[in-house]
């Protein structure tokens, strides 16, 4: 390459640009959470809409890699520790906890003194299992806004845990199983960290238990669980809490537990219409994503001027940020078609 034109071009380019394959860093020639196969992918976390198959090389945190290998099979993964810096081409890259689920990261990219942060998905309150969210100062911040409306505000985890345990204990006393629908990576383990194992046995669906095994192996502390294999007799485990992916509720698989009460754990349960449509007995408002106040405090803490809003109520949220003195834009991505709360209750991210 001959010097001048390239340098001029590079100066004119943003640290991160937005392409049809995903978020791209020209200085480092890598993508962040791309949705089409690329040569080099930096991955924030293991949910399917962020960690997709088919890339040649992956880079993620050492905390995130085991789940990625578990889900994507034989991939070429390089890992870094949280906070460790790495030069990739002309870019200085580091990963910082996003608090979304165990191993989840925001990715900081610095080029010629200008700093951008791609947050992936995040949650600002601690949950007793994920590495707590760490604000990273930057000039430009790419934020999710799955719950970017003022109606979304979460109760603190202790309050929800109390309700959850009371529900389980009541069902156990009534001779009923408690079947709780939750996504298998992240939400399920967070719930495990919230429930009181003294109430009764905890049974898990295979999808949840496989993820549990991976995380336990990494050293994350989870209470004992029993994998509900096909030959397990539900009668041997009275008063059990059963944690399963939402799709398993109402299925043949769930009927084996006999009389039961059903519940979902999701930020969407904040909305009564969604709760009723789900037709479960209970809806626990618990999300891996930041609520309205969490989004605002996270954005403020970055001290960024430029905000790019992605997956969620992007247009409304960007409009609001612009009234608050930020330079905010909507960023169209293909996130939010995945398996956690980013999936809006109607089947797709709004």
């Amino acid at each position: 390459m001959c010097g001048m034109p390239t340098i001029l071009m590079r100066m004119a380019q943003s640290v991160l640009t937005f392409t049809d394959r995903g978020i791209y860093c020209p200085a480092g020639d890598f993508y962040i959470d791309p949705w089409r196969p690329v040569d080099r992918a930096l991955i924030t976390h293991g949910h399917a809409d962020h960690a997709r198959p088919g890339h040649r090389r992956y880079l993620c945190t050492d905390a995130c890699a085991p789940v990625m290998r578990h889900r994507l099979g034989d991939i070429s993964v390089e890992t870094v520790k949280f906070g460790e810096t790495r030069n990739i081409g002309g870019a200085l890259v580091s990963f910082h906890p996003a608090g979304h689920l165990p191993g989840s990261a925001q990715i900081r990219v610095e080029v010629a003194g200008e700093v951008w942060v791609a947050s992936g998905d995040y949650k600002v309150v601690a949950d007793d299992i994920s590495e707590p969210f760490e604000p990273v100062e930057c000039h430009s911040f790419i934020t999710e806004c799955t719950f970017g409306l003022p109606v979304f505000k979460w109760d603190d985890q202790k309050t929800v845990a109390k309700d959850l345990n009371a529900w389980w204990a009541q069902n156990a006393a009534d001779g009923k199983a408690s079947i709780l629908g939750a996504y298998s990576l992240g939400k399920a383990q967070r719930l495990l960290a919230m429930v009181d194992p003294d109430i009764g046995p905890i049974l898990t669906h295979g999808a949840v238990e496989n993820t549990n095994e991976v995380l336990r192996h990494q050293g994350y502390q989870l209470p004992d669980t029993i994998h509900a294999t096909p030959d397990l007799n539900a009668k041997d485990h009275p008063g059990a809490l059963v944690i399963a992916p939402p799709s398993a509720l109402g299925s043949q698989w769930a009927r084996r537990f006999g009389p039961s009460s059903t519940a979902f754990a999701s930020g969407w349960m904040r909305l009564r219409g969604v709760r009723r449509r789900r037709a479960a007995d209970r809806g626990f408002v618990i999300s891996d994503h930041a609520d309205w106040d969490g989004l605002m405090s996270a954005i403020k803490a970055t001290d960024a001027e430029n905000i790019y809003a992605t997956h969620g109520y992007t247009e409304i949220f960007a409009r609001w940020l612009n009234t608050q003195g930020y330079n905010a834009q909507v960023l169209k991505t293909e996130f939010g078609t995945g398996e956690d709360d980013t999936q809006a209750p109607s089947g797709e991210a709004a």
Partner: protein
Amino acid sequence: MKDFSSLFTTIDQTTKTSLKTKALADFFKSASDTDKLWTIALFSGRRPKRAVSTTQLREWAAEMGGIPLWLLEESYPIVGDLAETIALTLPPPSRDSDLPLTHWITELKSLATVDVDQRKARILNAWDQLDPTERFLFNKLITGGFRIGVSQKLMTRALAQATDQEEASLAHRLMGAWTPETTTYHALIEVEDVEADDSRPYPFYLAYQLEDGPEALGAPEDWQAEWKWDGIRGQIILRNGAHHVWSRGEELMTDRFPEFARLTDFLPDGIVLDGEIVAWDGAQPFPFNTLQARIGRKTVPKKLLKDAPVILLAYDLLEHEGQDLRALPLQERRARMDAVLYDLPEDAPIKAAPPLPFDTWGTLAQTRATARDHRAEGLMLKRKDSPYLSGRKKGDWWKWKLDPLTVDAVMIYAQQGHGRRANLFTDFTFAVWDGNDLVPFTKAYSGLTDDEFRKITAWVRKNTQQRFGPVRQVTPHHVFEIAFEGIHASPRHKSGIALRFPRMSRWRRDKPLQEANTLDDLKDLLKTYG
């Protein structure tokens, strides 16, 4: 309001009718008489008069929530309920209180007499001492439509359990023009002899749809057939020299239909008739849209009275000489009714709905096929020895409607639903071809499965061309079969036609856009059936 709020939470957390009934019965056993009376009122469609406009509520809520009004407005269609949107947006209350339901209703009623600044101060003061669920209920009291998964029937059953009374007799007690201001819990529910209320109607007996043919009903001679008219189901009551007209929705409509005042000249006192109110052209009913012009009017201009006069096509006699006849067999009630209505002048605003003679189910099916020629929607089948029950009960009364008319149409606009359908696109506008243009002609909201609504919602989000507030213009692509019961000329609509009961009967994924029906096809239907 904590007891009422906890009742709501219990009801809201279950889909099982038995648990809802028990929760409500428990509430009826423990609450104060005034709270009980208001609870009965709310669950039977009675609510305090609205003292604050929803516009004011939105403005005040945005202000207290520290957000611009537009942001609250944008959140509303996503939440799908204004009362809930406000409850979720407000900051946590600064203090706790446990004032009873009746207190808050009294407070709302008293707002009518104070100026707007005071109203605002008192609403904000209420919000500041109610938790999110209590706020939601408080807001619901203001915005109306207190539908929280409790039907009047379920409420009546719970009340029957709590008071050890018969459900049917309670249902009758709860009919009529009472409000919590005009009665007490004791007078309404507990006194032995129901206070004389001359206007009190009987609970309507409702028919089920006959899904297959009538052969399974048994011997034809056990059944009576009538046209199923497309009007307003109503009861006309003549007691103590006065007349009262009730709709099936328990709305008192006496003033809307002044024609019936003359009935006291022809008919004896102490009778209650059940039938269909229709606009009458002298020989048969006008199409429903003629009657529609009358429904909205509380006072009727002379011209409309002349152009769209109404009559009652009576088909049942529920009370005669002041005696409740409901336990008698239908054929006996019918015979008495025919005697009462015998030899009335031709211009009397009442006629006995003619029974349709038939020997076999086959001949009846032929009669049914001609229903549209008689401006009827199909047939009613009633067992001749059946008593007049209350509510929708299977077995003795069936409606055997004509197959609907259908047209294949293109979806061009979509809007999100409310309540259980919040966040889903469920309300659509459909168009037919007029040359190369698509002309909108109807909206439809129902007929798809939850799964289909989810799929179309995902599609709408990806294929929005333009937004007009909550309405999205989408790429013309999907064809739906629209089923409807009737078609009428309508100058108010761009297409010049209006449909009766339109709904989506099928998602025609197999049908290309170009093969949807045309405006000329609709005009042909109008000529044939309009």
